[in-house]
């Protein structure tokens, strides 16, 4: 263990004939023993501050990421925990039934009639014997790569970040509601408290800290998968590889980044 101060090895004795040197050396030795651990700790602190140690301290670079999501229709059990968690995490207004994410129940009967209802409403009154297919379909903002909402905002209050998340600048939005009209998926609403447009943010405040969105975190069935679109190894990559994927309303060419696996054609 090198002595950070004098460069001498601990315990090294000066090669002189001076009888008083022995005392000095012992003092030096003791000093070394005290200083070295402190120096070591200081070096560790310096390394951590430089970000080499703990990842949570590292600066977040948006250009290194491109986020997407997958939803597996065959897994959703319609429990609604996703909508509840989103409401808590993001302070979504209760009044007015606004949703950043919601789940729809689809029931197709033997007469080829499809009835749809959001899960917070009463179940459609359908005789179970006549049901052909039925399932749940979660919906949220698709964070399109070609977002029509961003295209129509007159002032630049909504935008797509470098990591592929479509956000709304509450301090700049004038509340004209054009983006809400332009969204084909009904993902946006006007927050009655701030009078600005609002929508799912992929829990941007969570994903930039290495967490997953709240809806993904609490889904008990694993129907929602979040991750990087261009990672070769991640749960999302596995989904994109193994599933037959669809997006909602592909004919509108909005290039949504929420991919549905096992999606039924009745879903709009």
């Amino acid at each position, binding site marked *: 263990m090198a002595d950070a101060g004098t460069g001498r090895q601990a315990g090294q004795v000066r090669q002189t004939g001076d009888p008083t040197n022995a005392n000095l050396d012992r003092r030096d030795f003791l000093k070394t023993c005290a200083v070295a651990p402190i120096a070591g700790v200081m070096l560790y602190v310096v390394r951590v501050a430089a970000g080499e140690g703990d990842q949570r301290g590292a600066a977040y670079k948006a250009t290194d990421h491109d986020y997407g999501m997958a939803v597996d229709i065959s897994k959703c059990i319609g429990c609604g925990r996703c909508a509840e968690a989103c409401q808590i995490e993001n302070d979504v207004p209760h009044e007015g039934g606004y949703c950043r994410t919601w789940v729809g129940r689809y029931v197709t009967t033997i007469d080829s009639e499809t009835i749809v209802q959001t899960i917070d409403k009463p179940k459609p009154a359908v005789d179970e014997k006549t049901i052909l297919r039925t399932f749940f379909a979660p919906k949220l903002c698709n964070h399109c790569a070609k977002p029509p909402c961003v295209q129509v905002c*007159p002032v630049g209050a909504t935008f797509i970040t470098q990591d592929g998340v479509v956000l709304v600048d509450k301090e700049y939005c004038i509340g004209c509601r054009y983006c809400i009209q332009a969204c084909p998926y009904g993902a946006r609403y006007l927050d009655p408290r701030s009078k600005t447009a609002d929508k799912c943010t992929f829990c941007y405040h969570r994903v930039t800290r290495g967490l997953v969105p709240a809806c993904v975190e609490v889904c008990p069935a694993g129907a929602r998968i979040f991750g990087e679109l261009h990672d070769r190894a991640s749960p999302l990559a596995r989904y994109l590889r193994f599933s037959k994927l669809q997006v909602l309303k592909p004919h509108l060419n909005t290039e949504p980044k929420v991919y549905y696996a096992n999606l039924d054609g009745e879903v709009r």
Partner: protein
Amino acid sequence: MTGYMYPNEIELQWSLLIVLYPYITGLVAGAFILASLERVFNVREVQPTYRLALLTALAFLLVAPLPLLAHLGHPGRSFEIFLTPNVRSAMAMFGFIYAWYLMVVLLLEIWFDYRQDLVEWSTKAKGLTRWFYRLMTLGATDVSPRALRFDATAGRIITIVGIPSAFLLHGYVGFIFGSVKANPWWNSVLIPVVFLFSAIVSGIAAVLLIYVASCRIRRVQVDMLCLDKLGSFLFYALTVDFSLEMLDFIHRLYAAEESIKILSAMVTSRLFISLVVLQVLLGTLLPLLVLAVISPAFERRAIVPVPPAWRRRIFVVAALLVQVGIFCTRWNVVIGGQLFSKSLRGLTVFKLQMYGLEGFWVSLALLLLPLAILVVLIRLLPPWTNGHAAPAPLNAEARLS
């Protein structure tokens, strides 16, 4: 609500105020096009309405941004449209098109047309109005023949530039709706064109009504040649407007895309009265038939000749019906586009509020405000004399009504 709507769609986003805005800018564009008929296309008969049409356009244009400001969540931030406009957004063009039209087209044209009178009035008037007129001349008091010729030429050029500007002023509103691919009721190439022609229809009808009303108030004979001409142009414009609307309607039914089921359900249930009854039957077909029959549009003879006094009354009724019809057109586009779900599986209802900023009374006030402004403008800038041309010699009998 029936069927299924996305949770965020149940409440309408754009309501009565946004119905008002295209209606008002439509009147502006239409009144200006009428004025340009006289100035550029030399339709002498409508000369008595030239200045009146310009003032009408100005009065409505001044009120036009008010419904938008009232509707915004943050009207205090509205200036952001001028500072950081998103050039890909049709709505961002509002600031520039409006400013251009107001300042470069309308105000300038009025200024050039009235300048000679302003100079004269600034010498003759007393008190506050004298200062007002002096200010309005901007110090350009040269009334030499050369300067007056310049005024006439400049006015003509501005009117020529103003015609496409008027098209743009109202056309971009149609584009705001027509370019929304998410909404199958709005997403149509025809919407900007239909908006434009219905604007021309409503503008001509508005000037007709204001002209007759102003003659009444001033106890002056209505110039029947002028009124007949207005009626003819109203008829032509209505024909084109109706053809375009029918084209859109027929195309939708024929192509029968996925949205046809829910849109048909909407038209036959939620929009039956406002679309089938008020817009099509009473607002377009009835005035069209009536005008076709009584208006001397075909070689100065009507199919059914009607004495002038009755012709005048029928024109007024037709113009009123047209206004109702055009207002309903705006209503059906704006409100109709939000009554059905983008999931194409459900319909909701529009609850018209009476009070509050988005309510009935505020909208009524915003519709009457331009008339009040017009009264003030008429007082300040009387449009009864001709600005740039001597009155056209007219048949004495034709003047009687």
